[in-house]
């Protein structure tokens, strides 16, 4: 039973990939510039362990704070749009236009406004997370089945009850999709935000590794960023499976 679950998890594939990396690089004499040997990458990770850990926590913190504020604002905006059509018509197109401004163009301004602080990364992360969450909240709230709404009205439901007992639960799976997209974007936002200047963080380390052409370090950071993303996404998936398992019929 336990072994079966293990076999069906991604773990065996990871082991296979690591083995392939470990064996193929020396066998094919691949240049370290393109793909360093696995051993070199592990050794490098051990040498920068304290920095790596500090960077991991810092980037995680920026991502999580940015994500939660972005999620709160995005859900609130989605609810507002769903509630008041004039708000959707007046404000939503502006959000769409803003969304198409690349973060890079907009990052410089954020740094001028907030300096090289945690806040500037949080702002970029939340800016990226906000939009998909707002759009999915709006879409989800519009999915409530008209016949179920009629049933609720026949029971004498108020608009508040209609929202809490029908529209919101109907929307949750769709909102969850937005939240997962928002989470990945928040991580990207935090890393890119660090490129505008800071001293701690995975993004900072990435930029430094690139500057000094520390190829094993780049791979250490790629793997660490991947790990961080997987951790966040996996956590979201767990919450989803536990609490928001239903689908629209």
């Amino acid at each position, binding site marked *: 039973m336990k072994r079966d679950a293990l076999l069906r998890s991604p773990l065996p594939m990871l082991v296979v990939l690591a083995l392939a990396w470990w064996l193929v690089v020396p066998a094919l004499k691949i240049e370290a510039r393109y793909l360093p040997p696995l051993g070199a990458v592990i050794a490098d990770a051990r040498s920068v362990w304290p920095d790596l850990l500090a960077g991991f926590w810092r980037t995680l913190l920026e991502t999580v704070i940015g994500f939660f504020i972005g999620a709160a604002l995005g859900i609130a905006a989605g609810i507002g749009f769903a509630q008041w059509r004039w708000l959707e018509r007046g404000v939503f197109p502006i959000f769409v236009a803003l969304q198409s401004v690349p973060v890079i163009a907009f990052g410089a301004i954020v740094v001028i406004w907030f300096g090289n602080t945690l806040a500037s990364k949080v702002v970029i992360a939340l800016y990226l997370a906000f939009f998909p969450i707002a759009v999915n909240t709006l879409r989800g709230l519009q999915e409530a*089945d008209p*016949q*179920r709404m*009629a*049933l*609720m*009205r*026949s*029971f*004498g*439901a108020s608009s508040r*009850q209609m929202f809490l*007992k*029908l529209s919101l*639960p109907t929307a*949750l799976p769709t909102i969850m999709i937005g939240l997962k997209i928002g989470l990945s974007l928040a991580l990207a936002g935090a890393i890119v935000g660090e490129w505008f200047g800071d001293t701690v963080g995975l993004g900072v380390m990435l930029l430094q590794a690139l500057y000094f052409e520390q190829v094993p370090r780049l791979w250490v950071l790629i793997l660490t960023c991947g790990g961080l993303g997987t951790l966040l996404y996996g956590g979201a998936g767990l919450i989803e499976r536990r609490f928001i398992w*239903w*689908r629209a*019929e």
Partner: protein
Amino acid sequence: MDSSMATPSIAADHRPAHLQLINVWKRFGPPERQTVAVRNVDLAIQPGEFVTLIGPSGCGKSTLFNMIAGLIAPDDDGSILLSNKVQQDYGLLGKVAFMPQRDLLFPWRTVIDNATLPLEIEGVSRKAARARAEALFPEFGLEGFETHYPHQLSGGMRQRVALMRTFLFERDLVLLDEPFGALDALTRSMMQRWLLDVWAKHRRTVLFITHDIDEAIFLGDKVVVMTARPGTIKCAERINLPRPRAASVTTTGEFIDIKRRLLAVVEEESLKTFGGATLA
């Protein structure tokens, strides 16, 4: 009006009706491309009566129900009276227990939480609502399924949950829109007998839509036949089969006589729908 002197059927006509429809119309769409869904419906239902409504598909039965439930406003031509009081547009919301054609259970709620939804909306405390629902579980054949989710139930069970939800919304007038339409024949006939038991115990006024003549006769005190669209009342027939009715009543001569008469009327209307469709 001394009802004690009168024969039962006339006495029934003199009691104040529980629900009365007077010249009810419903037209959809702009004047130039108008669909008349319901036309000139007059109908009176006595307290505690079980009335079945039968008519070809698309003749306006559901539209009529939506008006009685207060979900859509009838056109200005006529009026709907509940216990002799004329109802304003949407004034019937919250006054009638309405069960739509689909079960419309909420997938994120357990069986018991689905059943207590109307009580929750009325502001009954969670504990009291659950206690009232729990008392009904054996009667509705759902014992042991309280904490199941709708997707874990069969069609017949889902329908019973929806019926329980309708019954827990304790209104004297109950509207059931083809509640057994999607069930297989065996389950359906079991549910019919079961519904009659429940009705005998709770004595609500029931208006029941079906497109199955046997079902209409087996259940009803009165069968009302609607015409093809635009739907109006074609005729009504009182069913004097003794109650409680067993399944075997459907093979009696009396039942078959009634069925033969009604079938002729219903066929005529169904043919109109069919003919209209082929001509169009």
